[in-house]
């Protein structure tokens, strides 16, 4: 194998059930796969559903992936306050987190031990006309902050996670991804 620097990033994506954290987890994993990386995706399932917190772990790597489960992640996307309380302390030193400042008080985000990128995901999505796309704003910001896959690969993978009957929503979701990326610059 060539002596190329191996790429590896794990991320925990967490929020309320219904915020679409599993959807953007899938989307990120598809983008990684379509970009030629190895990927794993594992949701937390079972008792933690509907109204409670939902989270998933995605790993993208140029090498084969061992554990799909990560206790201390390199990065995180934090969509609500309970998720911040749970996962911010677990983030590795110098880790990166996207914090949804529309729902989380900015002062709660740790800016010393880790890199916190504050993005008003719901606010930005609202301006685009649909606050349900806050998840896409967050993922756009994440991809811009980590550079793990090109934003274009994520946009191209939207068709993998949005079913055919909602195809007309793809351009709007792409816009939300782009707006998120711009907000993280």
């Amino acid at each position, binding site marked *: 194998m060539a002596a190329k620097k191996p790429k590896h990033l794990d991320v925990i994506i967490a929020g309320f059930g219904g915020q679409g954290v599993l959807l953007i987890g899938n989307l990120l994993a598809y983008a990684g796969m379509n970009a030629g990386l*190895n990927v794993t995706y594992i949701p937390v399932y079972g008792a933690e559903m509907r109204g409670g917190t939902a989270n998933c772990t995605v790993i993208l790597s140029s090498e084969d992936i061992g554990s*799909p489960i990560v*206790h201390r992640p390199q990065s995180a996307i934090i969509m609500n306050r309970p998720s911040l309380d749970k996962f911010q302390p677990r983030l590795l030193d110098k880790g990166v987190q996207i914090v949804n400042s529309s729902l989380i008080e900015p002062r709660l985000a740790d800016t010393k031990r880790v890199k916190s990128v504050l993005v008003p995901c719901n606010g930005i999505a609202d301006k685009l006309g649909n606050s349900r796309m806050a998840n896409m704003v967050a993922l756009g910001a994440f991809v811009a902050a980590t550079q793990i896959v090109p934003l274009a690969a994520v946009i191209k993978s939207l068709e993998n996670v949005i079913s055919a009957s909602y195809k007309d929503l793809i351009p709007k979701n792409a816009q939300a991804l782009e707006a998120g990326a711009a907000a993280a610059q």
Partner: protein
Amino acid sequence: MAKNKRVFIKGNEAVAYGALAAGCRCFFGYPITPQNDIPEFMSKAIVDAGGEFVQAESEVAAANMLLGAGACGIRAMTSSSSPGVSLKQEAISYMAGSEIPAVIVNMNRGGPGLGDIGPSQGDYYQSTRGGGHGDYRTLVLAPGTVQEAYDLTVKAFDLAFKYRNPVLVLGDAILGQMKEPVTLTPTAKVPASEGKAWRLEGKGKRKPRIIKSLFLEDGALAAQNRHLEAKYASMAGEVACEQFQLKDADLVVVAYGSIGRIAKTAIRKLRAKGKKVGLFRPITLYPFPDAALAKLAKAGKKFLTIEHNLGQMVDDVRLAIRGLADSAFFGVYPGDMPAPEDFEEPIVKALRRKA
């Protein structure tokens, strides 16, 4: 030939895709978490492929339907999780006794009893020691990745018919729920003659056949058991395992399935700190890869078995290396979710231990 299709699917779905690729024609299901994606997917996909789907009235019924299909030489499967697999054991014993091929999937969850719906390896003994009453074995395949869940399910059907024996695919709630890319292979063309020498298909003009596990005639049962013993011994060539960074390793970590891959991450982290540790991941649990382990023991290596239970496979590891070495053990309790960090300290401790 067109490039094989690549899909991003759950382990549960991979098992179903694998069954279809192997030419499975009948699926008998009964719901239980964490394997519900398998019957859910099959309820449409196998019908679209021209096969039959039955949601049985119970696990017991599903397993006996499997027995019936297998006796007719039909490629058939059932899937369940731990408590449900316990209920299937009577039929599995009958299938072993009457040499009926079948594929049974167990996405192991926490036990004993109803336990929980999380991952566990508590069914290792049940899987590798037959599981039901009587003296028999089933081939046991233990995928560690979603690709393996697909590949080994395809293989399970071939092995079932090669040996006329039930084959168990043993995963867990982690494997069932996680998604990974899988490269699909073209669907196998099952020869119409498969099982022709023994299957029940209406006797026509030939002599009648009886497929049974009851042998009351003088000497008949002993003869059957002798025959089965020889058959189990002939399966030894099917062993498979993954060996990772073992060449210069002082310590061999033995772990299977999801725990194997979680251990792999711990091993990588320790390697980065200069610790000479490697992974031995059995892919077949029966037959068990004893010879490969004995070879490592002869090379003077130390052993640590890690499982998601209170210590079951460690017995087989110790048997494999007996007289040469011993194995330490670290167990994660069913009910706890293991992470690589949990394994680092036990591995370092085992590495320091005197052989």
